[in-house]
């Protein structure tokens, strides 16, 4: 590779703009500029110099900040588009997603679905976009941080004139016996925590180089953050499931691979009342009920050994616990939160076998809607058969039918057997309606009462990526602080042929640098540098184009 040997003797990598050691401008084009681009110290950014193989081409593509910015913009636009219609995961729909979006939103819904916007965070192209941002971060950082580090490490005290005069802050003046003044200034700079390097009467003062690594530390944080998010896709790292648990029911906890089971003893919803003190009185009067506590009293079980789907494993009691809001049940990195509830769902219905004319009753039957029996014997020759049960009754094509398996609108076909009607009478009983399909009956099933049950809605969470994500976040912020609260300042004082040149550079906050320079130079004969950029702007105002 063509190395470039500078006149100061330093050998630079191919593509270097400013000599790493003395800062001499090595590229003709750069010489035409009045001010240097100091962002990466004029280093040979690898991506800009090699463009041979496929690997280099991919590398170069991702090393471009422009590409990185576009990736972020496109991701932002995609994320914004993803909010136009609801995400599938936030819907509880009973039809397929494809149908749902098409029916509800027409042609746009269809396109939305086809392009994967309905489940944006898991659509392949969205993941690729975010991943590309990650790749861009890694490559951009490597491509800049490594050469920058090398250049800052190799920099020399004595700088080439072409470097000094193209700094934003610069001045040059003829001066005899400058050494005494320079010594004074050096001492002052030391007090201001500058690191001083001297060489043949030339001085370089530097502080806050640390600040230059801020963006790269920041990127490391971001990459860790993305890595943490990637881990969420790895089985076992992240669980976020919902479960409904009826009072009295024992069910497997979703996401635990049949390792944990939960029994719900009671769901309790407590309201504030007068006993809680005067302070609540007004609020209670105004709003009605104010909830004091949502609570599911549960027992946690652990399964003994593995079990197949459908198989009921042997359960071992682990503990009893009252799950309250913000007081989840915790076990083995899992946390079960109280997140929702349903009150007073019908669980059982009671009917009385009644003689329609006399009103005489021959006993009650209580039907457990989750497990109705087929036959209820009332003794003395009276019995009731449940011929069919429709938990969510509707008439479909002239026939009784159940819409769902949930007892939202229970209906029964009864056969009532009595001593005087040993063949039985058939009656169809739904809520607030009775049909006697086979003619007028002597008896009826008179509705008596319902029993109700509560459901607890629980959220099951497990997130092993939180640690990595928070470390990533902290490093990110450290990087921001590093780059924001420190500035990399350098001041060069060079003497040659009876002239003193003073130049200065900072990566930000030029104003304070100027103040600092003015303060250290005060009372000496050394010339005070001026801001060449101001000149440029003034020149611009006059319509003269000085900078290419």
């Amino acid at each position, binding site marked *: *590779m063509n190395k470039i040997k500078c006149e100061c003797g330093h050998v630079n*990598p191919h593509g270097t703009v400013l000599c790493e050691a003395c800062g001499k401008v090595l590229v003709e084009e750069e010489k035409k500029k009045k001010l240097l681009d100091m962002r990466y110290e004029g280093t040979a950014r*690898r991506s800009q110099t*090699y463009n041979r*193989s496929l*690997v*280099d081409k*991919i*590398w170069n593509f991702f090393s471009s900040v422009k590409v990185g910015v576009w990736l972020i913009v496109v991701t932002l636009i995609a994320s914004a588009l993803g909010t136009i219609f609801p995400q599938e995961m936030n819907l509880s729909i*009973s*039809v*397929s997603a494809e149908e749902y979006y098409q029916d509800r939103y027409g042609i746009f819904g269809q396109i939305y679905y086809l392009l994967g916007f309905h489940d944006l965070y*898991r659509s*392949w192209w969205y*993941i*690729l976009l975010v*991943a590309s941002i*990650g*790749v861009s971060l*890694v*490559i951009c950082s*490597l491509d800049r941080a490594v050469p920058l580090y090398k250049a800052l490490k190799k920099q020399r005290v004595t700088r080439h004139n072409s470097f000094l005069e193209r700094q934003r802050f610069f001045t040059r003046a003829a001066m005899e016996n400058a050494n005494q003044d320079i010594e004074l200034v050096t001492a002052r700079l030391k007090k201001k925590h500058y690191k001083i390097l001297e060489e043949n009467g030339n001085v370089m003062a530097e502080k806050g180089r640390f600040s230059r690594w801020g963006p790269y530390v920041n990127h490391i944080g971001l990459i860790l953050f993305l*890595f943490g998010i*990637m881990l969420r*896709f*790895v*089985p076992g790292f992240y669980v976020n499931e919902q479960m409904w648990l009826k009072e009295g029911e024992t*069910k*497997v906890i979703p996401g635990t691979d*049949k390792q944990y089971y939960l029994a719900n003893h009671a769901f309790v919803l407590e309201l504030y009342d007068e006993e809680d003190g005067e302070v609540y009185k007004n609020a209670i009067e105004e709003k009605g009920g104010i909830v004091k506590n949502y609570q599911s009293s549960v027992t946690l079980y652990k399964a003994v050994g593995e*079990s*197949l*789907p*459908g*198989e009921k494993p042997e359960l071992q009691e682990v503990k009893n616990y009252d799950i309250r809001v913000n007081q989840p049940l915790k076990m083995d990195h899992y946390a079960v939160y109280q997140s929702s509830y349903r009150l007073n769902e019908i669980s059982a219905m009671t009917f009385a076998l009644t003689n329609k004319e006399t009103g005489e009753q021959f006993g009650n039957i209580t039907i457990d*809607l*989750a*497990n*109705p*029996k*087929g036959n209820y014997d009332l003794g003395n020759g009276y019995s009731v058969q*449940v*011929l*069919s*049960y*429709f*938990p*969510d009754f509707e008439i*479909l094509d002239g026939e009784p*039918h*159940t*819409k*769902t*398996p949930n007892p939202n609108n229970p209906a029964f076909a009864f056969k009532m057997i009595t001593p005087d009607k040993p063949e039985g009478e058939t009656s169809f009983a739904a809520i607030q309606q009775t049909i006697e399909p086979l003619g007028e009956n002597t008896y009826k099933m008179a509705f008596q009462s319902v029993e109700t049950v509560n459901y607890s809605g629980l959220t099951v969470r497990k997130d092993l990526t939180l640690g990595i994500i928070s470390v990533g976040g902290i490093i990110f912020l450290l990087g921001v602080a590093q780059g924001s609260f420190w500035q990399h300042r350098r001041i060069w004082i060079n003497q040659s042929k009876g002239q003193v040149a003073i130049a200065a550079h900072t990566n930000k906050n030029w104003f304070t640098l100027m103040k600092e320079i003015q303060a250290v130079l005060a009372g000496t004969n050394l010339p005070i540098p001026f801001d060449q950029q101001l000149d440029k702007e003034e020149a611009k105002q006059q319509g003269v184009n000085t900078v290419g």
Partner: protein
Amino acid sequence: MNKKNRQIRRTVILVLLAVAIIYTLYANFTKDDRKVAAVGDKAPDFVLTDLDGKEYKLSDYKGKGVFLNFWGTYCKPCKKEMPYVDNQYKKYKEQGVEVLAVNVGETDLAIETFANQYGLSFPIVVDEDAEVQEAYGIYPLPATFLINPDGKIVKYITGEMNEQMVQQYMEMIKP
């Protein structure tokens, strides 16, 4: 810097990044698939009981074709296809094709009424906690898996079948 070194370094970094991305995509897609037993896969084993408490284990059917049907009494197409399945089951039973009808967890009474109404002769098991439905990724009903004598899933059918289809499918998994 040596050109070869640079090439190697860049390649290594790019390969590492590519592996991470490919894994993420893979994990993301298999997260979906994991729930759905796919054609060509080994059919997930399960144990379910019928209304009389008799246990049925899928792996006990090795060497036989299994016509695994998921159904519910509230599912209209299920009502239509059940008699066809029963007809064909009677013919193919002797040829080594078994039908397992997995109810999606309704009440015994509803299942019994339904089975009696249509005179179903094949075993009906109840997936009370929906674990088997989850393992097979059932959605929507009706859903049928054809499992060959080696225990592999040959075909996954959603939607209503007519009698001719049922017959063809049973032919497919005949040992």
